[in-house]
């Protein structure tokens, strides 16, 4: 029974990891930016949800779209106004830039909201139900569902819509895309906005399932990095695969080797994948 419970815990955790990482994977895959700001968008999305709940009693599931849209626009304008200025510079330059912006974001959050941990505590927050003796917590099931929804939705968007195809076109051949009338500056901004919006949506539910504070952004960023590399960069379903693998490894690792090695085992898997299959479990196929 305990194994079954831990299996369920792992899968739910994996889905949530996918929700956290899918936007990070998009920006990395399309623009080759290691977006240090990703955790900050997640944190800000969480704070929007928290304040709406705390001040006006808005349910996190209702404020989720709001967090996502707010972060989309924030991301869109950050890319358009700032990151696009150095998009042709080296990989390291965009890394440094997003790192600098992350410092500004975190310091401002600390200034306005202090370092206190906050959490959205709805009536149903601690609620769970049982299926055949296995406990399934509601909020974590919702996070899992959100992970599937975001991953599936993004997959559909990239495959079917005109903007999605334009994003892929820019990724595959920038000059050809420009000749076809695609404006790369706008497409980059849209891509970055979508990524930030996905992070904001994830953050909304993270604020209900976890405690958020201005400094927790880094921890989610580190997870996103591992998930993307393990699952396969630039591959949307890779975030889901990476998330599930990480969830399983962390939880069963914690069971057999003790919870102390939980995070270390995640990084061990990262190294293992880099040695055996550097392109990640699902490879780089997604955008071609």
């Amino acid at each position: 029974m305990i194994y079954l419970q831990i299996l369920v815990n792992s899968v739910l955790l994996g889905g949530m990891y996918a929700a956290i990482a899918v936007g990070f994977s998009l920006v990395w895959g399309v623009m080759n930016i290691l977006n240090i700001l990703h955790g900050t968008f997640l944190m800000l999305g969480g704070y929007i949800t928290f304040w709406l709940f705390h001040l006006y009693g808005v349910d996190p599931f209702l404020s989720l779209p709001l967090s996502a849209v707010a972060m989309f626009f924030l991301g869109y304008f950050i890319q358009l106004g700032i990151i696009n200025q150095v998009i042709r510079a080296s990989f390291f330059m965009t890394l440094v830039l997003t790192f600098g912006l992350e410092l500004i974001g975190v310091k401002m959050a600390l200034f306005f909201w202090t370092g206190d941990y906050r959490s959205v505590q709805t009536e149903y927050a601690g609620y769970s139900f049982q299926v055949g003796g296995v406990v399934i917590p509601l909020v974590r099931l919702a996070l899992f569902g959100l992970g599937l929804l975001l991953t599936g939705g993004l997959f559909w968007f990239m495959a079917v819509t005109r903007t999605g195809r334009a994003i892929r076109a820019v990724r595959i051949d920038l000059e050809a895309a420009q000749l076809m009338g695609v404006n790369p500056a706008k497409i980059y901004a849209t891509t970055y906005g979508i990524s930030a919006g996905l992070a904001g949506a994830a953050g909304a539910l993270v604020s209900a399932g976890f405690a958020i504070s201005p400094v927790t952004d880094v921890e989610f960023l580190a997870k996103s990095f591992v998930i993307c590399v393990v699952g396969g960069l630039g591959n949307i379903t890779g975030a889901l695969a990476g998330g599930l693998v990480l969830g399983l490894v962390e939880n069963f690792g914690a069971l057999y080797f003790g919870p102390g090695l939980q995070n270390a085992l995640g990084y061990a898997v990262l190294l293992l994948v880099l040695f055996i299959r550097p392109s990640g479990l699902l490879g780089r196929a997604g955008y071609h």
Partner: protein
Amino acid sequence: MMNRVARNTLGFTLAPIFVAAILMTAFTVQAADVIKFGAALPLTGPLATEGKKQQNGFEIWREIANSRGGINVGGKKMKVEMVYYDYESKSPTATKLAERLITKDKVDILIGPFGSGATKAVAAIAERYKIPMIAPTASSEAVYDQGYKHLFGLLAPNGFLPSGFFDTVTKLNPKPTSMAFVTRNDFFPKAITNMMRKASKKYGFTDVYYAEFPKDSKDMSTWLTVVKSKNPDILMVGGYVGDLILATKQAKELGVNPKIIFMMAGPVYQQYADALGDTSNNIMSAAWWSETFNYKGRVIGTAANFADIWMKKHNQVADYVGAASAASGVVAHLAIEKAGSIEASKVIAAISSLKTDTFFGPVEFNKGGQNIGSKIAIFQIQQRQRKTIYPLDISDGKLVYPRP
């Protein structure tokens, strides 16, 4: 691939964004008639909340002391000046900044950083330069067994905790018999959890589970699932407030329901009950100080006086971190007046032999420099408020047992 030929010079001008060193030199008084205190605090990073509380605590004391003209040093009033640095919650940085405070800023007295781990590291610096150091928030005995002559700590030793806790729980009916222990792999949580575990054996408890979780753990479900299967009467979790909020949330979700849940050190902070709401009810913990204790002394007055000032300034219930920090100033204040000098050796002698009452409780240092006059109180959160259960002479509530 992306076209990387074009280089944008704007990128180079963005470098200054990177520079985020925060050096805060507050309230510089120009005259020579000042006593200089220095503190490296975790003002950013994971411990930012605690660091800010420490700073707020010192400032309350400093303002009171200066509003009365300063500290009376052998008949001459000297104002207090504080120099703060941010060590970003990284202990190695704290030691570097402590060295800077002593050598560059020439502080007379060093105030400790947050927690036992960082305090132990910084104490070595104070010892080397022979500067008196007062540690507000280090309670682990292992900080004070190095033979240091310049270190003094306000918090009662961790060792005071087990006797209070087990005296309380062994009198309960039905008597709890088994315990599970889980701790964050970090200096203080590990020290206190292992101390409780060792003591539990003396009191006849069966130890059904022990585990450690890593510092930035984002999922507690596995060990909680194992704990549930072992069904202990008491679960003790050691960690900091972020860990303990998550652990409490997930314990509720997974239906982990021992008769007692005891956590150190998170429930003592207002943010714990704020973040968890009613889920925080009936969690037990311990505190070195509470505004409800009937403590009284010179400089700040009663525990309730301090809590009032804190509430007015910060709109928040005061806890031991801020109180102990203000008390560090009070101890220095009283010792300097007693010594009639700010010369390090005389101040050290005065602190060593100090025996006094303060708003933080009685103060008396043992040979290692740890305050053995103070107490550790056991409390339980009821209706989102801390209710003191032990010691009985300062208690204001009855334990809810077993947890519903």
